[in-house]
Structure formats: structure tokens, C-alpha cells
């Protein structure tokens, strides 16, 4: 049995990271050349890790399923990246960023990791500037900042509404430099389908070449998973179409624990769902909440009149509008954290005050901001977002308020890792959104980019060496080892089995059904009965899928339906684990809202006595119930309080 050891270094919180670095073992330059590392994924975490490890002198193999590393979905992050620079002189410190992140995560994150994240945040901004990332500037030539949800200081750096793109292209540049140099070998259109474990250590992967369908074996001294989150288990989410859980799920089944699987972030400001054939949801950056005011009509008659077109939103006076976030949370107003904003929108819509075709939308209104600042300023700040909205919805947000509704956006849960970002399988590391991360039960805006780059540039390149320092004597592995043959055989059998079903229904048919179950019962609010139902319903759906899915084409060819089917097979198992985790956690915290546990005002009610832990699920084998292990969370630097944004 694996025992959870989070390996938190000694000393006071502000000394832990430097103490760790003072004492850790490193690999000397001559030995680095003898060591191979596989990095799966090329988003902010994967690209920055692969580039940094290459710079240090390791041999890196980097994999992505897209046609180029620059496509990874980090590219779509809009709003910004946090750092404790305190350039605006508004009182920010490393401690405050740390504190806000732990509080924002509703006290379910590991203190020492979050502190380190806040500590390295400033280095990230410096690094990006050196790469030529064009962050927004003031007329003085200095960097500009804006505010984001869950904070009372302006600490967010941004590049228009395309911050993720610019940061990813910075990391992609660094990666390209290493590819040119030969220290990183890039494998595009390759998908990891299994992990190879030799004598208890991660030693390689099985990857499928998506162009010709061939299975390939790749060996290394260590494997790093940087494949992002699993929001697509909901079918509709803001994730890219290809984002999937497969790499994460396969390592779970090989022995890595899965941390907090039910912690999902539902983002409050997305474009509402419009029809049955919708393939994905589009986010409207949270930064819009800086200037936009969220409201619904105060009276139900007005809801009806809006719906039948009798009146326009503009026709309602201030008194006839309910700015419910400003009403409920006067201190933070429209800038409350995401989980709070999402639930408040759901509450209004469930109560019958929602607007739009389906009644599942609220207004995000820029009228008063345009009056106060002028259209030019708003255009300069959000021009591309307004354009994006108009292209999709065919309405002009300068003239009529946007309609928004919450959508699945990010998963705080992921592979359990210790302080060194190592999983419960020695030699296997997980970084970025793929790990269970520093965000606890809710991630603050502009913190995902920070964590991805912190892990990839400034944490993993150090901590991985502590593992590798005793691997320098281990010669390169042969992919002829029986463990590789066995993993390849199992992968091949799974794909053949999928192809042989030749059922009646398409992959998307099953994926949509899974999405419905997840959204209904494991979504924004959950209860015992629903979660129990979800567990059975997902099991049944999974059986149906394995009996009835239809995949055209050949196995040894480019086959997009087979790719989707293999990913869905894993989502169909993951969904059940998410429901189980949600069921076990009998409290409400952050994005996990259990209807049975709420305050009189309808706010999330934590149960610190019984649930101040990370759920780390262990795979026990096919058909067996997974086992729950607990990592107890100790708070030394922070006093645990009821979250209050009022």
C-alpha cells in the first residue's frame, strides 16, 4: 500500500521553498545528458517544462495530439495572469496573494504549495517580458495591471483579451529554440494512451501516431504529465474539442492517486447554450466583471415582457433591475469569486428571473461603464471580446447587454502530487491543470496561467532533479522490455475492441448523454440522491457504450472517431469517480456545492472538522470500488475562516 507523503519541507512557510532548494540533490551537467524525460502536453505547463528541462541539458521528448505545440488550449485563456509585483502600490504582497488563493480555494489547498506559487509568481512576469510577451502598458511605458475576482488589489497582468495566447507563444518560442538546438524532440499528432511502469517506476509511454494509427513505445527516466483538465466530461465546456482525461486516467489506473476529482469550476460568464448541436461553449473573460454589471429583472412580469419582445433590457429603469451580486455581496460586488457568482446566477434563474430564449441567462451590462469611461476606453479594454460575442450571438454588446450563463471551465481536481509535483508512482510527475493543484475547491481568475508557468519554469525543473539524482547510473531503457510489450498489447486490444463493437450509435451520442448526467447531477449543485443516481446512470451508459458504439474507418489509419471513442471510454469511468467523490464529501466548499450543506442565506457551508483533507482516490482494479485515502491539510500560516465576500 502506498502511503501519502506530501513531503512538505521544514521551517516557517516563507522559508520552506528556499530550505528545500538549499538541501535538494541536483544532477550535474555531464549526467543530465544521459537522462531522458518525456513530457506529455505542450500547454503552458508542458511547453515551459520541456523548454526549461532542455535548457538544463536533459534529453526531452515532448508530445501533443494537435498539429503543433502552439495549439494547446492554454492559448484560449483570455483575462490575465496574477503576480505579487505590487506595481500599482496598492498593498499587494506575496503573503496576500497566497492568502487570497487559499481563501479563494475555500481552504482546501495545501498551504506550502500555494505559498511557493505566490513566491515564484513575480519571476514568471520577468521571464515573459524577456521573451517579448507584449503585456499591456501605460503611457509611462510601465506595465499595466487590472483587478480580478476574489482580490481587492490589482495584480493581474494582461495582453488584451489574449493573455493565454501570448504566454503560450512565449513558452512555444522557448520550446522552439530547444527543438532547434536538438535538446527537445517534438512529436505532434501523437496521443499518449498508456504509461509504462517498470519495477514500480514510470519508465515510458505508449503513444498512438494519429496520422497512421501506429502504436509507438517511448522510454525515459521520468515521465511528466501536462495534459490539462477534464472539463470535457460534461461534453459542453469551454475546453477545446480535443481536451481529454486519457493520459491522467491511464496513470490513475497504473497507480497514481486522483486528487479531489469532483472539484470542478463552473465559470460564471459564458455565452449561453443555444441548441442541441452546439459543440462547445465560449467563455467571456471574467475581466469583463471589472466594468460590467450583472443583473436580472426585479419583477417576473418584466421577464415575460422581455421574452416576448415587448420591451428591451434598456427600457427597464435602475429600480426595476436586480443587481443581485451588488445586493448580496456589497464588499466585492460583481467581483466575487467564480463559484459564488455562478451559484448566484443559477439561483436567480432557478427562481424564474432568468432572461433569454431558455431563461437560463443573466445580463452583463456595460451601459454605466460606457457612460462613465466612454466607448473608446471600453473598446480598448474589451474590443476583441465584444467582437467575439457579436460574431457568435449576432447582437451588439455596446448597445444591448450581453447575456451570459455559467459553464464548465476548469478542473481543480487532478493527479495527486506531493510538494515535488511527483505522483504516487515514483518517476511520474504531474504539472499544470493536470495535477490536483494549488487551487483547492475553487480557482481564482488569472491563477491558472500563473500555476501552469510556475510549475513548468520554476518548480518542476528543480524538484524533478531530486528524483533523477539517484537515476544517473541507470542506463537508457530498451523499449523491448516485457512491460512495454504488455502495455502496447493492452492498448491495442482496447482499440480493437472498440472497433469491433460496430454498434448503432455514434460516439457523440454517448458523450452528450454523459454530459447531461454530469451537468444535472454532478454540476453546479449536488445532492446525495442525485449523486447516487449519477453513479448508476453512468455505469449503465458505460455498458451501453461498450455494446453499441459505432466507429467507422480503420484502426491503422487516421481515424478521428476512434480517437474520440478512446477518450470517451475514459470519461465514462472518470464521471463515476467524480460522482463518488462528490458523494463522499458531505460539505459544501468552493465549486463543490452540496444542497444539504448550506447556510440560511444559501452560502456554502464547510465542515472543517471532518473534511479538511484532500481526497486521494486509489484505483483498485477493474470492477472494484476505488479506495479513498486522505491527505490531512494543516493550516499554520493562515487562520481558517468562513469565506466572506459581503
Amino acid at each position, binding site marked *: 500500500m502506498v502511503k501519502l507523503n506530501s513531503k512538505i519541507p521544514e521551517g516557517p512557510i516563507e522559508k520552506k521553498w528556499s530550505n528545500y532548494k538549499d538541501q535538494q540533490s541536483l544532477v550535474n551537467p555531464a549526467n543530465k545528458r544521459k537522462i531522458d524525460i518525456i513530457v506529455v502536453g505542450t500547454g503552458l505547463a508542458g511547453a515551459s517544462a520541456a523548454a526549461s528541462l532542455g535548457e538544463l541539458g536533459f534529453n526531452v521528448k515532448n508530445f501533443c495530439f494537435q*498539429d503543433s505545440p502552439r495549439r494547446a488550449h492554454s492559448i484560449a485563456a483570455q483575462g490575465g495572469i496574477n503576480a505579487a509585483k505590487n506595481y500599482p502600490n496598492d498593498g499587494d504582497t506575496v503573503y496576500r496573494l497566497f492568502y487570497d488563493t487559499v481563501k479563494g480555494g475555500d481552504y482546501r489547498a495545501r498551504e506550502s504549495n500555494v505559498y511557493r506559487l505566490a513566491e515564484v509568481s513575480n519571476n514568471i512576469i520577468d521571464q515573459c517580458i*524577456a*521573451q517579448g*510577451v507584449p503585456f499591456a502598458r501605460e503611457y509611462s511605458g510601465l506595465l499595466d495591471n487590472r483587478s480580478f475576482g476574489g482580490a481587492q488589489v490589482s495584480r493581474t497582468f494582461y495582453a488584451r483579451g489574449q493573455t493565454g495566447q501570448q504566454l503560450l507563444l512565449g513558452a512555444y518560442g522557448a520550446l522552439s529554440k530547444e527543438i532547434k538546438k536538438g535538446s527537445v524532440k517534438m512529436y505532434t499528432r501523437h496521443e499518449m494512451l498508456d504509461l509504462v511502469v517498470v519495477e514500480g517506476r514510470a519508465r515510458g509511454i505508449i503513444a498512438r501516431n494519429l496520422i497512421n494509427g501506429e502504436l509507438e513505445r517511448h522510454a525515459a527516466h521520468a515521465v511528466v504529465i501536462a495534459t490539462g483538465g477534464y472539463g470535457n466530461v460534461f461534453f459542453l465546456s469551454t475546453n*477545446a474539442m480535443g481536451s481529454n482525461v486519457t493520459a491522467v486516467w491511464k496513470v490513475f489506473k497504473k497507480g497514481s492517486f486522483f486528487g479531489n476529482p469532483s472539484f470542478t469550476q463552473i465559470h460564471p460568464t459564458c455565452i449561453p447554450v443555444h441548441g442541441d448541436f452546439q*459543440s462547445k461553449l465560449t467563455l467571456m473573460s471574467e475581466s469583463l466583471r471589472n466594468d460590467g454589471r450583472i443583473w436580472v429583472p426585479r419583477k417576473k412580469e418584466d421577464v415575460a415582457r422581455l421574452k416576448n419582445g415587448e420591451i428591451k433590457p434598456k427600457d427597464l429603469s435602475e429600480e426595476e433591475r436586480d443587481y443581485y451580486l451588488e445586493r448580496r455581496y456589497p464588499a466585492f460586488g460583481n467581483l466575487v469569486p467564480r463559484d459564488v457568482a455562478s451559484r448566484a446566477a443559477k439561483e436567480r434563474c432557478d427562481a424564474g428571473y432568468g432572461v433569454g430564449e431558455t431563461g437560463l441567462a443573466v445580463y452583463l451590462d456595460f451601459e454605466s461603464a460606457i457612460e462613465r469611461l466612454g466607448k473608446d476606453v471600453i473598446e480598448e479594454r474589451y474590443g476583441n471580446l465584444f467582437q467575439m460575442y457579436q*460574431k457568435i450571438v449576432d447582437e451588439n454588446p455596446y448597445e444591448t447587454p450581453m447575456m451570459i450563463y455559467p459553464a464548465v471551465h476548469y478542473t481543480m481536481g487532478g493527479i495527486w502530487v506531493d510538494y515535488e509535483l511527483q505522483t504516487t508512482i515514483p518517476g511520474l510527475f504531474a504539472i499544470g491543470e493536470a495535477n490536483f493543484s494549488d487551487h483547492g475547491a475553487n480557482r481564482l481568475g488569472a491563477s491558472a496561467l500563473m500555476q501552469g508557468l510556475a510549475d513548468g519554469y520554476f518548480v518542476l525543473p528543480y524538484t524533478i532533479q531530486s528524483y533523477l539524482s539517484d537515476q544517473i547510473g541507470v542506463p537508457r531503457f530498451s523499449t523491448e522490455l516485457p512491460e512495454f510489450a504488455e502495455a502496447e498489447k493492452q492498448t491495442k486490444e482496447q482499440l480493437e475492441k472498440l472497433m469491433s463493437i460496430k454498434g448503432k450509435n455514434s460516439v457523440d451520442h454517448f458523450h452528450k448523454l454523459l454530459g447531461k448526467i454530469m451537468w444535472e447531477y454532478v454540476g453546479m449543485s449536488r445532492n446525495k440522491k442525485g449523486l447516487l443516481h449519477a453513479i448508476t446512470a453512468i455505469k449503465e451508459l458505460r455498458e451501453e457504450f461498450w455494446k453499441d458504439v459505432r466507429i467507422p474507418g480503420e484502426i491503422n489509419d*487516421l481515424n478521428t472517431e476512434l480517437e474520440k471513442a478512446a477518450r470517451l471510454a475514459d470519461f465514462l469511468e472518470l464521471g463515476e469517480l467524480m460522482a463518488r467523490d462528490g458523494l463522499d464529501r458531505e460539505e459544501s466548499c468552493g465549486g463543490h456545492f452540496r444542497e444539504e450543506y448550506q447556510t440560511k442565506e444559501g452560502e456554502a457551508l464547510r465542515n472543517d472538522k471532518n473534511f479538511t483533507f484532500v481526497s486521494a482516490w486509489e484505483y483498485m482494479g477493474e470492477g472494484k470500488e476505488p479506495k479513498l485515502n486522505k491527505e490531512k491539510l494543516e493550516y499554520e500560516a493562515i487562520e481558517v475562516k468562513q469565506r466572506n465576500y459581503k
Partner: protein
Amino acid sequence: MDFKLKIWKQKNAGSKGKFVNYEVKGISSDTSFLEMLDILNEDLIYKGEEPVVFDHDCREGICGMCSLYINGYAHGPDAAITTCQLHMRKFKDGATITIEPFRARPFPVIKDLMIDRTALDTMIQAGGYTSAKTGGVPDANAILISKENSDLAMDAASCIGCGACVASCKNASAMLFVSAKVSQLALLPQGKPEAAERVLNMVAAMDEAGFGNCTNTGACEAECPKEIKITNIARLNREYFSASFASEL
């Protein structure tokens, strides 16, 4: 809405392709172009046929993975958007829509509408970055950059690497793509130390990959979903001439 579709089908890089006719019916005008293709593909799967293969991922106009040459336009007839942002309301009910892959010699077809754009990565690898290594860099505010230059750099940096500029150019030139990166870094003090080497290496890589020359037709700018300006090409030329002049001395 109903549409007749004329879609390029090609088994693989080696085989010859041809147009195949399809029909889709009852499409809502709010459907995106790629969702319309999803509907077609679902239909084909239920009929036991192979779906049409096309590249896509983010579906919000930022990853650069979608392509498609629609009715003679890269990313379709609407301006300043990618194919994934195109909606069916832009087409007339009953219309025939022709869908082809981006065509250019350096972008071989992989299957149907899916193409290989590795050549774009190769050009970036030739020098589309600053060589700053992780760590040991100055404070972010140590060097001031005028808002104007920073904004211009951001305009250029918005390129999503889709290759529509190449597909729209009769010479299959990648000049707009290369100039966007060269410009971004030439406009910033951090890019200056390597500016000369960068422009020479990237242009050499472009020639080597088989992209054609730029004859200033401006087709690239017109089709670029991110409205990358052709003035970047002028800046590249200036950079290139001063760099080659310097290297001859």
C-alpha cells in the same frame, strides 16, 4: 436551412482527391460552420460512411487549428474570423457551399480537409523567439517600452499561425506569417539583440520550406482572420535589408 455541400475528399497524402457532394437539412442559422460539418458527419456515421476529416480544436478563433477554403475564401466569406467562428446565418438558404483544404505546396494534404502545416513551426524554430533562458532575467519593469510600440507588437503577436495567408497567396508566400513574428520582436527592446540573425534565418527557412516570394498582392492581409497588417511585411523588408547589408560588411 438546407445546404448542398461540395467537399474535397482525399484518402491520404499519396492518393488523388476529388469533390464529393453531400446535403444537410434543417440547419439552424445559429449553427456554426463546424457544427454544420458535425451534423453532416453524424449523418454519415449513421449511414455507415466515413466522416469528413478536418482540423479544429478550440472552436473560438484562437488556436489556429481550423482551416478550410470555403467558396474560394480561406476561413470563408466573412471578414476577420476563423472558420470555427463562421456561422450559417452568413449563407443563403439552399446555397451550394464548396469546401476545400488550404492549398499550398508546403502544406500537403493528410486526409480530406486536414493538412500538414509543420512548415510554420519550422520557420519559428529558425529564430522566432528571444533566446532568453529560464531564470536570470531583469525585473519586468526595468526596461520601459512605449505604449505605442507595445501595442504594435501586440497587433503583430496576435497571429494564430493558421496559414490562411499562405493559402490566399497566389505565390504561396508565408511572408505575412513570418513578418508578424519578426515585427513583434523587432519592435521590442528584448528582441533587438538577435533581430538581424532572426530575420535572415527565418527568411532562409521560409525559402527552404518551399514558400513562394511576396509580390505585394495584399491577398494575405485581406484574408487574415486576425487582421495582421501588411505593414509588417514592409518592416520585415527593412529589417532584412539592413541585416543583409550589415552581414556583407
